[in-house]
């Protein structure tokens, strides 16, 4: 079983991830002089949640050919579900000191908590909702879309419309999710102060564990017979139907799993960065996820995770060094990857390695 899940690339990636998971908190909390500053911990943690989001998208796009331009929506919904719990955790410590209502509701003169906020005072309920809400949306959306055989760019465009509609909705104050400002000013999670270094390190570890678990789950799915059916759907949807597979059911399954995974990523992201707002639903955000996957290597899982980290890191660096250049760089990446790197970085590196390995053997022969 383990052998099936862990091939070379997965082994290398998990090993590096493990080293990071140990070294970063150590460097931040234990080693004198704090060689790893606290903001770096939060930043790296954020990258890892992006990586998980990329793995989720790779599962549907890389393996099943569903190019979702709305995966940011699932991420944001997970983030909001966790954000709602964190808001309720604040309790009477808000600016207005209302024991139940979050500040923005007091500000808007709301008298009581809307029904959809009920239950979020419990962490475990919130943790469940982090997966249930994105999963339910994916189920409803996918059920309609896949059953009526909307495919290709049409599907991409309506997933984009989905996240766009949600963005507009969440911008409204009346929705009860903090409108423009979103949810922020969190105090603590499970009783731990969100400003404390230890909590941040804990969240970083949680992100790393979630990423590893997500990768292994995705790997389990893609190496199973179901994974082969997904590939069959991607390459020859019609053929797969005539083989007797109910294509829409498979698509729905993988779409829902992927949405849940994205939701978990969003849920860890929110406490790490301390805010979740409707901007996360913007179509541009969702398209950017696609480039993470494409850059790293579509259909490789590990590559997708790498791609997310590479793009996020270059964004951090470039926007602070040459802010003017960032969009050129990002735009260039989209063009470059589609034109000359269809296999992504991982694909190119592995092809390179194979060539290097083959050459000495050929020389010997």
């Amino acid at each position, binding site marked *: 079983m383990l052998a099936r899940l862990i091939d070379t690339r997965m082994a290398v990636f998990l090993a590096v991830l493990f080293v990071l998971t140990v070294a970063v908190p150590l460097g931040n909390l234990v080693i004198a002089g704090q060689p790893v500053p606290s903001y770096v911990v939060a930043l790296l943690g954020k990258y890892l949640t992006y990586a998980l989001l990329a793995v989720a998208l790779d599962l549907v796009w890389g393996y099943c050919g569903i190019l979702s331009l709305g995966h940011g929506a699932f991420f944001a919904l997970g983030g909001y579900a966790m954000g709602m719990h964190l808001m309720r955790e604040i309790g009477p410590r808000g600016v207005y000191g209302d024991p139940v209502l979050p500040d923005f509701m007091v500000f808007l003169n709301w008298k009581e908590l809307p029904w959809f906020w009920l239950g979020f005072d419990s962490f475990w309920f919130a943790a469940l909702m982090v997966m249930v809400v994105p999963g339910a949306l994916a189920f409803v959306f996918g059920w309609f879309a896949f059953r009526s055989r909307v495919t290709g760019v*049409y599907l991409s465009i309506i997933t984009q419309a989905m996240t766009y509609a949600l963005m507009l909705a969440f911008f409204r104050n009346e929705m009860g999710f903090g409108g423009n400002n979103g949810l922020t000013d969190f105090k603590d999670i499970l009783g731990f102060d969100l400003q404390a270094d230890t909590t941040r390190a804990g969240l970083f570890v949680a992100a790393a564990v979630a990423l590893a678990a997500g990768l292994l789950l995705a790997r389990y799915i893609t190496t199973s017979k179901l994974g082969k059916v997904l590939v069959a759907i991607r390459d020859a949807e019609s053929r797969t139907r005539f083989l007797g597979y109910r294509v829409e059911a498979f698509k729905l399954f993988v779409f829902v799993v992927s949405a849940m995974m994205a939701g978990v990523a969003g849920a860890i992201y929110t406490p790490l960065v301390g805010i979740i707002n409707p901007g996360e639903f913007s179509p541009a955000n969702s398209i950017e996820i696609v480039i993470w996957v494409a850059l790293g290597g579509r259909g490789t899982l590990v590559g997708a995770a790498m791609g997310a980290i590479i793009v996020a890191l270059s964004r951090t660096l470039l926007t602070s060094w040459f802010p003017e250049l960032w969009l050129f760089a990002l735009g260039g990446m989209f063009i470059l990857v*589609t034109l000359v790197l269809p296999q992504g970085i991982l694909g190119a590196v592995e092809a390179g390695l194979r060539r290097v390995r083959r050459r000495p053997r050929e020389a010997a022969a």
Partner: protein
Amino acid sequence: MIFTRQSAPRGGEAAGPGRCPVAWALTLALVVILGLLAPPQARAASDSFESLVAALAGGSYSDRAKLVAKIAQTGDPRALGLLEALTDGRLYQRKSDKRIVTVAASGKPPGMSDAITGEDLGVFNKRAAKKVKVNNSLRRKIRTAIGLLSLTSSDAQDRLKAAQAAFASGDPAQLEALDAALSAESDRGVATALAEARAVAILNSKTGLAEKQAAITVLKQRGDRDAQAALSPFRDDPALAGAVAVALRSIEERQALWGMAQNVWYGLSLGSVLLLAAIGLAITFGVMGVINMAHGELVMLGAYTTFAVQEAIRTSAPGLFDWSLLIAAPLAFVVAGTVGVVIERGVVRHLYGRPLETLLATWGISLMLQQAVRSIFGPNNREVGNPGWMSGAFELGGMTITWNRLWILIFALMVFVGLLFLLRRTAMGLQMRAVTQNRPMAAEMGINTGRVDALTFGLGAGIGGLAGVALSQIDNVSPNLGQSYIVDSFMVVVFGGAGNLWGALAGAFTLGVANKFLEPFAGAVLAKILVLVFIILFIQKRPRGLFALRGRAVEA
């Protein structure tokens, strides 16, 4: 007796040596005498313009208000200027001789003249004069009075304005003047306005029931919000309640109808914008199966071209400003079209048959174009002006139509018809359709599909540029301009059905009107969300849109 006491010195002054013709002096002297002799009860008979004006400086505000009304009723040609000076606070009483003087509106120091004779009295000295004061309620009365004066103006436009002002004030004191004006009026539009003003005045007066009923009918026929406002105070009047209720109901129905018409218009206007933004997209998607995510940025380039053209005109040939859009349109087409051809040859060409990759690559291009424009023109909104013929609005029945929206609608339809012509009637259009329907066959028949592709993409892009020229007139010109239209224009294409211009037309106008009809109930944002949800559901039912191409060619 304020009145007579004041007329005396003024009369004396006017008769001063060598200033006025003798006849004038005699007349004035007579007036003064009459004024002196007249008993208070008979004062009305002596309400000459001169005596009224002379009386202005004394008394309370309410006395002054009565005087103003009477001055207006004299219909004296000097009254208008006098009343205007009064509201502007340019009317004074000279302390030395109690003469009422008008201070010139301009000049430093300003000159002054006699308010009645117009005689030049030299430089105005503020200390030697007392201002004839006005307060707000008086100012309102003066405005009404000025309005009534204009009722007899020779310019029909002025008379119409005066009638409208009379309507708004609804003062029964105007009745006489209105009746007089109405009997003399020859212009039908002005006559209607006068009749309506008269109706309001009658309702407010103590006239008999029959006249009031007739007045209600007049207002009912007018049927707009103002008529509604004029009628509603009488809703509880026991004598009139029934007739008023009927009239109000009829007005409301009419209003609802006009409101609907206005919504349709807003919807058509939004639809025309969507059509412009989407039609280029429909071409590239339909003919080439290419999703061009950079289309919004091509629109933006068109808008910035307009901006650049206007800048150039502003600095070197300001007289051409009204022509700026006509100059910008072809330029925008060429700029956006050229960029489109470059995109096609440089990137899209290598990705045919891989629509998802094309989508990503063109998205990358869109990001770069955005940043390029941001670097060159700055991140802020740029000011693009409306030429004279694009600004302002006109009334059509109960709805308001702005010129810029109307021109954009016309422009969108012109582009649509032009495109239709191009596709149906020209060799290039024939080749494009051939490539759409059967690419390999078209290639075999000697059509250079590569050239057709480049031209098609360029055409779609160029139309995006034209859309930008139009959008610059109603939206902020910023590097984000394109982003705000991209989702909507995709919805139009998907809803209408790719590859069909009629689909784009139907899609754009349906979505535009649907949006505007939902807005009053749901609010702008929710309306948009509902439309998006509707399209998402619609796509499930008809995955290929409203006007889908069918048959084998599409399946393959």
